[in-house]
């Protein structure tokens, strides 16, 4: 046993190591990515770990491993669970032999996401147990138990940490890393694994029969607990339980929910001991709905009556406002403070020298009147450059482009997608576009890495998750195989060539693909690549400001003139933008 100061995701990864898992699959997505990022580099235990190409692939791979009797972990962010929803729903029917834990990290407040969906609803939908930790320590302990729970009920278990668990830190008591190693064996059993109607009807009934025992067991495991202390009660789930405990007066009863499904009888007994009950939880009113079902004449406060928000994340201060709204006292008072006015925002921006910036620049220049569907990755930041008109979900750049075109819109449509996102769910959209005769241009922003989530390797990288060399996939060959006749590969640092490529595709019919290929500056730096440094000749600079508008964070205005600071990564693109040819490579660097 040891105590360490760890990130939630590191603690979760350690919990997995302690519980002797054998296979881990996942697709990167904030806030879940660090779990596999930790597992793929540690050497204290041997197991199989992969970055899969998408979440559906990851879950099917992990599920099959669990069918073979080993313990499997599958990680993703909440929206990834939508992609994996197809195998998820039926995996509850087939069940598992070895423990299967599906980690789906939710992101209340959408810190780094396209929506605020609640993974607990999926667990309810699929009728599988769900664990919802309230602290880093609990996340560690729960994931450890989750494998056993999965084996006990022969069901996948959904583990649902939120951003404030995954990216929180705390002193965590860790156990020892397990030395048990299992070897999978597939035992043929068509009635279990072949879900034809005759089999699946039986399996569905079995799934439903498991439910009462699961509810009882979750209370025995101590995830759902209560203390009766007064006439009023607060029921809180997940991290909201920690916020409630910070402000809860000593004479108010408290129930903490950390696991679902909730035993209604147990809940009812607690609720009916009180006059008023407040339910505090982030996102969907999952607990609240059950509380309302059992409440009888007890007054219940929560989201459906407007005391607590459906959206955003909570905090102790936000929880105190909910308490006040329904007349509950708090043990701590928070001052009302608002941020200083007129502080310029500092949103994240593309790195100095990022290959996406010149692509957007050239695209906008050639397609002045164009429509620009885009996708999910660092390049979504092209929004700031006016180069992103739509993003909805992974892979939806090319499909949205098709839909806009088939609607009758006549302007040029240029879609952008990253390498990893293209391989995730972009290929099908491209195939569909060609098959159905769309007219559009797709730009694949190929920087050979899944950058936004922390630079994970993917099939274009040439390395697996654990660093084993593997032949990099040819995006050109994939596009051609989808039926694209014009596939052109360009270096985005060559602004002249890039612009020419855009001009060329503009005139052509059908579906055209430009692959803009250049290493992400962060991976290039890590690999030791030095391109030198550029500077502005102050005498030649005419103060036109064109290079500054380009938006590279290395270019600033000092007085009237442009100046290049230390952030410069030496891409050289700005030299092509300056009409006075005032930007040059710095001598001797």
């Amino acid at each position: 046993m040891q105590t360490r100061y760890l990130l939630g995701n590191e603690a979760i990864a350690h919990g997995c190591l302690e519980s002797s898992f054998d296979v881990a699959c996942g697709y990167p997505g904030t806030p879940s990515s660090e779990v596999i990022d930790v597992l793929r580099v540690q050497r204290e235990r041997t197991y199989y770990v992969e970055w899969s190409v998408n979440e559906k692939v990851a879950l099917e791979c992990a599920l099959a491993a669990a069918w073979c009797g080993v313990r499997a972990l599958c990680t993703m962010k909440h929206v990834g669970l939508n992609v994996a929803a197809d195998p998820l729903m039926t995996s509850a029917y087939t069940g598992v032999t070895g423990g299967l834990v599906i980690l789906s990290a939710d992101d209340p407040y959408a810190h780094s996401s396209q929506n605020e969906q609640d993974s607990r609803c999926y667990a309810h939908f699929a009728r599988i147990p769900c664990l919802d930790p309230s602290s880093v320590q609990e996340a560690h302990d729960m994931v450890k138990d989750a494998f056993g729970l999965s084996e006990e009920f022969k069901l996948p278990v959904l583990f649902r940490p939120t951003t404030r668990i995954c990216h929180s830190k705390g002193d965590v008591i860790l156990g020892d890393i397990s030395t048990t190693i299992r070897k999978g064996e597939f035992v043929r059993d068509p009635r279990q694994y072949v879900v034809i109607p005759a089999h699946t009807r039986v399996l569905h009934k079995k799934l439903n029969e498991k439910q009462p025992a699961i509810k009882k067991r979750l209370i025995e495991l101590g995830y759902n607990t209560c203390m009766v202390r007064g006439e009023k009660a607060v029921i809180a789930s997940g991290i909201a339980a920690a916020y409630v405990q910070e402000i809860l007066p000593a004479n108010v009863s408290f129930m903490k929910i950390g696991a679902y499904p909730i035993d209604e009888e147990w809940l009812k007994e607690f609720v009916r001991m009180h006059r008023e009950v407040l339910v505090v939880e982030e996102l969907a009113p999952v607990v609240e709905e059950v509380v309302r079902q059992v409440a009888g004449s007890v007054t219940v406060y929560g989201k459906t009556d407007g005391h607590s928000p459906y959206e955003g994340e909570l905090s102790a201060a936000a929880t105190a406002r909910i308490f006040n709204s329904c007349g509950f006292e708090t043990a701590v008072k928070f001052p009302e403070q608002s941020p200083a006015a007129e502080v310029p925002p500092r949103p994240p921006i593309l790195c100095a020298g990022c290959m996406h910036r010149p692509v957007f620049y050239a695209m906008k220049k050639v397609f002045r009147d164009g429509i620009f569907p885009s996708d999910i990755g660092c390049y979504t930041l092209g929004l700031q450059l006016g180069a992103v008109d739509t993003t909805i979900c992974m892979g939806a750049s090319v499909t949205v482009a098709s839909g806009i075109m088939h609607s009758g819109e006549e302007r040029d449509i240029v879609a952008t997608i990253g390498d990893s996102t293209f391989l995730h769910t972009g290929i099908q959209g491209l195939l569909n576009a060609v098959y159905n005769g769309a007219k559009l241009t797709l730009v694949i922003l190929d920087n050979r890495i899944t950058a936004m989530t922390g630079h994970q390797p993917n099939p274009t990288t040439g390395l697996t998750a654990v660093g084993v060399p593997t032949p990099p996939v040819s995006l050109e060959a994939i596009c051609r195989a989808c039926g694209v006749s014009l596939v052109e590969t360009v270096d985005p640092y060559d602004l002249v060539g890039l612009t020419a490529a855009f001009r060329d595709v503009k005139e052509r019919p059908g579906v055209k693909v430009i692959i803009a290929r250049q290493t992400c500056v962060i991976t290039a730096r890590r690999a030791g690549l030095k391109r030198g440094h550029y500077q502005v000749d102050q005498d030649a600079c005419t103060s036109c400001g064109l290079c500054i508008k380009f938006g590279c964070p290395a270019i600033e205005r000092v007085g009237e003139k442009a100046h290049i600071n230390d952030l410069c990564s030496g891409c050289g693109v700005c030299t092509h933008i300056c009409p006075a040819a005032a930007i040059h490579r710095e001598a001797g660097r």
Partner: protein
Amino acid sequence: MKTGYDILIVGIGGQGTILASNILGEACLIEGRPVKGAETHGMAQRGGSVESHIRIDGRFGPLIAPGTADLIISFDLLEALRYAHYLKAGGEIFTNCAMVIPTSVYTQGVQLPEEAEIRKRLDHQNTCYIEADRLAQEAGSILSRNVVMMGAASGSIPLGNESLRAAVAKLVPPKTVDVNLKAYDIGRDAGRECGKSHRSA
């Protein structure tokens, strides 16, 4: 009742706020004290405004509420202003006096307050301005800016100087231990000087 000591570390993605929060966490472990923290990961780190919450002796959630932080450590002057409302009455701010101008000022023409005005808006708090960029260079690397700032604030942090130094030595890359310990010590001296003057003022 508020228990524990709450520190907000703010800066710009890439300036090392995460390392700074790890130093505090590690020092708490050395002293056997509970600690909770929350920080910015993911895309927001790409040159965006970032914050780390650290709650020494923290027992509940990881987030510090506005108006309740005991101490703010800022690696950038503008970020100090952005997060100043987190400070409790009577709390302290230690900020780098240098400022990186947000790109939005150039690309979207957003108005940037003058440095003197930012200072004026921070001055009603107990604010120490540290020349962290210069001191980091003096220690041997601009990259030690974050450790200079931790040193500067260390006199106010309820953790032992030796625990903090030990945490620095443990967490920075092995080749940079000397530079960083020097940065910490230089920062600590600067913080002490500044502390004297703002207490006497």
